[in-house]
């Protein structure tokens, strides 16, 4: 058996074990861990997956994904919550059918994503990054300033109004966990499928050589716009789940901190492999929880600070040791093993070059 086949086998085995653990999680973990750590990791992982999808296969590092998640969540929250005695107090409180609201929230987010994508489709690198950051800032300020849809106060009670097939997730949090797990699985398979389609392959071509792809007749801007729309769809799924999980939405859920957090999750997990989204989310949330519980709020001795300090160090160390995040660490381990049995010149090649050489 070759080393690559061994690696693939090991990854599949780990994947199966992770899936089994995930399915059995309600039996293994406390309610808090299931609800606040694992469910949150699955949901933020979906958000990070939308970012990694655009980055890994489209060459677009988007900071708009948090904003798009927030738009989906806010749209849903405003459409489903109701003005009843002892009920909610903020937002439009339209009281619409939850199924209709769910579909409209996702469609609205995808529509906005396509518009955002179309505007940004001709920008690259740092300009693309800044433009997408602007989208999130616009979304943040919009929901914060327009008090009709909530303002800076929370729009609450979102988890009490869900479509029939979703059920009572406000009281049955295990149900919400499984819904998040199924959605995460769907997103993973969807992205894996998409990158193998002609569209996905041409996206990867545009990622590597946009000028060459344009000269071959591909509409680069359209491809990038559509990819952004797909990213918005995935982000919308994450946003809806986030609204159900959190139960209430306020602008800070799509603020600058949240945007940076999603980027950190993606980078910690690894910007090149979609699995990194959930690995990064789990690592980020787990570290956050441990630090909050274990370190006094007035900070660490000498260096001060709390979670942001710790995650900052982790981020820094990871970027130095493995720019491709935790998934990159895994790949590097296998690359190192491979190098032991290869001639020295293989070391000169990047993993991409190695992959291209082996496929050609």
């Amino acid at each position, binding site marked *: 058996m070759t080393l690559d086949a061994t690696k693939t086998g090991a990854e599949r085995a780990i994947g199966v074990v992770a899936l089994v653990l995930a399915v059995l999680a309600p039996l*293994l*973990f*406390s*309610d*808090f*861990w299931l*609800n*606040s*750590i694992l469910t949150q990791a699955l949901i933020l992982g979906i958000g990070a997956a939308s970012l990694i999808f655009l980055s890994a296969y489209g060459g677009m590092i988007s900071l708009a994904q948090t904003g798009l998640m927030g738009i989906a969540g806010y749209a849903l929250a405003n459409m489903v919550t109701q003005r009843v*005695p*002892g*009920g*909610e*107090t*903020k937002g439009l409180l339209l009281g619409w059918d939850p199924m209709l609201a769910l579909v409209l929230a996702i469609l609205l987010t995808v529509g906005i994503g396509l518009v955002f994508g179309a505007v940004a489709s001709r920008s690259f690198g740092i300009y693309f990054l800044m433009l997408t950051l602007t989208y999130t800032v616009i979304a943040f*300020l919009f929901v*914060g*300033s327009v*008090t009709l849809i909530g*303002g*800076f*106060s*929370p729009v*609450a*009670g979102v*988890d009490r109004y869900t479509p029939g097939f979703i059920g009572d997730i*406000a*009281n049955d949090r295990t149900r919400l966990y499984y819904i998040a797990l199924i959605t995460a699985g769907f997103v993973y398979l969807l992205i894996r499928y998409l990158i193998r389609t002609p569209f996905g392959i041409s996206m990867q071509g545009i990622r590597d050589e946009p000028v060459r792809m344009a000269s071959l007749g591909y509409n680069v801007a359209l491809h990038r716009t559509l990819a952004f729309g797909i990213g918005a769809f995935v982000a919308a799924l994450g946003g809806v789940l986030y609204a159900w999980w*959190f*139960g*209430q939405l*306020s602008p*800070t*859920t799509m603020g600058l901190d*949240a945007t940076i957090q999603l980027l950190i999750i993606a980078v910690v997990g690894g910007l090149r492999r979609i699995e990194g989204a959930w690995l990064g989310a789990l690592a980020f949330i787990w570290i956050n*929880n*441990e630090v*909050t*519980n274990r370190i*006094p*709020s*007035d900070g660490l001795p000498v260096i001060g600070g709390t979670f942001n300090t710790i995650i900052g160090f982790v981020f820094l160390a990871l970027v130095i*040791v493995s720019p491709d995040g935790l998934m990159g660490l895994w790949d*590097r*381990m296998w690359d*190192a*093993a491979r190098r*032991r049995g290869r001639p020295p010149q293989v070391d000169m090649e990047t993993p991409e070059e190695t992959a291209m050489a082996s496929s050609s």
Partner: protein
Amino acid sequence: MKVGRWRLLLPLALLVVGGTVATSGALATPAQSGEVKVAIMTDCKGAFAFGYEVDTAGALAALSQYAGAKPKNKKKPSAGITGGTAGGKSINIVGIGCGDETPALALKETRRLMNQLGGEVMIGPLSGDEAVTIANWAKANPQKTVIIGTAGSQDPTMQIAPKNLFRYHGDGAQWNAGLGEIVYKKLGWRTAALIGDDYSFPWTSAAGIIADFCGIGGRITKRVWTPPAGGDYAPFIRQLPAPDKVDGYFWLVGGANTGAALTAFEQAYGSVKASQHSGNLFLFFLGNFATVAPKLIGSYMGGFGTAQTGLKTKKANTYVKQAGKWYPGVADVNDGFFYNYWNAAWALVQGLNKSNGAVGAALHRALPRTLKPAFQVANGGTLRLDSRRQAIQDQYPLQIVEGTDGKPAALVAGYVPNVDQTFGGTFGPNKSAPGRNFPPCVKRKLPWQGKVQVVKNGVITKQFIK
């Protein structure tokens, strides 16, 4: 990196992760009995970060006073307590929540304290939107108990009002009762504009002023709301009518931002005239003492349900002595942040004693519907909760004066007995929560109209404000 290093690093990493998971409560564990798990929720970041030790001091001092606990460190309340029993059960402080006044972090911290660490009772939070968030959380967690620390939004006990949530102090509107009448009568204001932050607490705070000022015949000609993040106030100040177009201004800008807002006002309209400016408690506190207050000597402002500069009654004097001994020099016991957390913890001890340490529904039934806090004078000094478990509390409008040391000081100027949350029907559970445009400016008879008593040198006189 050589493979050899991985052989060392991987097991090490797995050991760290495994060890942390094993000790982190990740795996399901049964609940302990024989103790009551209490969480304190306050802020350690953002505009109210100063409240972390002050709020904690208030709650833990009361537990020390009434439940036999002892501070671990008299200079640092967040170090916690040892001992302490109520209703035959020991009190276990499971954690002190660290919010930043945002709903998102408040909910996250609440879940950590109450769901992960197993808190059964929460004392907190500190600020308005946090309380809205936690009230909604409380509704979904009816077996838990929340006693609000010192948050001033109306919604938690008016529109949301879950049965497991209690508040032993006024909301932001109640704190401002009497202020409108004072500026109407003492300063002759007939028209006013207001400017405030655009979220729950300033809306509630403004609601009290509007109801009071309009109730007696005043008119609010303009309401300007600014993004709570602060920043450049110039464009918002320009939306206010000029000083010659209005009799006065009510300032409801949160935290320490009043200084920046007032500076922008001066840049637009020239020096401020103290008799033309009023506002809520933030006009003086939270860092505005040095920047804003010196310019506003003589101005009237809303209170905090406390006789901030002291009230000369036996009960108030006893409280100052009792509360002040636990964390000397850390917090001013007359300050509402300390006082409100003190009263919340005191009520909890009473409730636990009555329920024999039982929590959940038994504690909800047992928590006192009356309390005798230091600055309550009406009803023989008894504060009552209404049917939505919200305090009906005496209020004390303040005036900024020049202290004996030449520095500005907040002096109690009036006494408004028994202020309830409805303002004579202005607010109600089936009405909108205070917002940008609610309540409307309407003349109406409030229960305390014409009955605001003058307070002189810490003594409530028989005179009414004229």
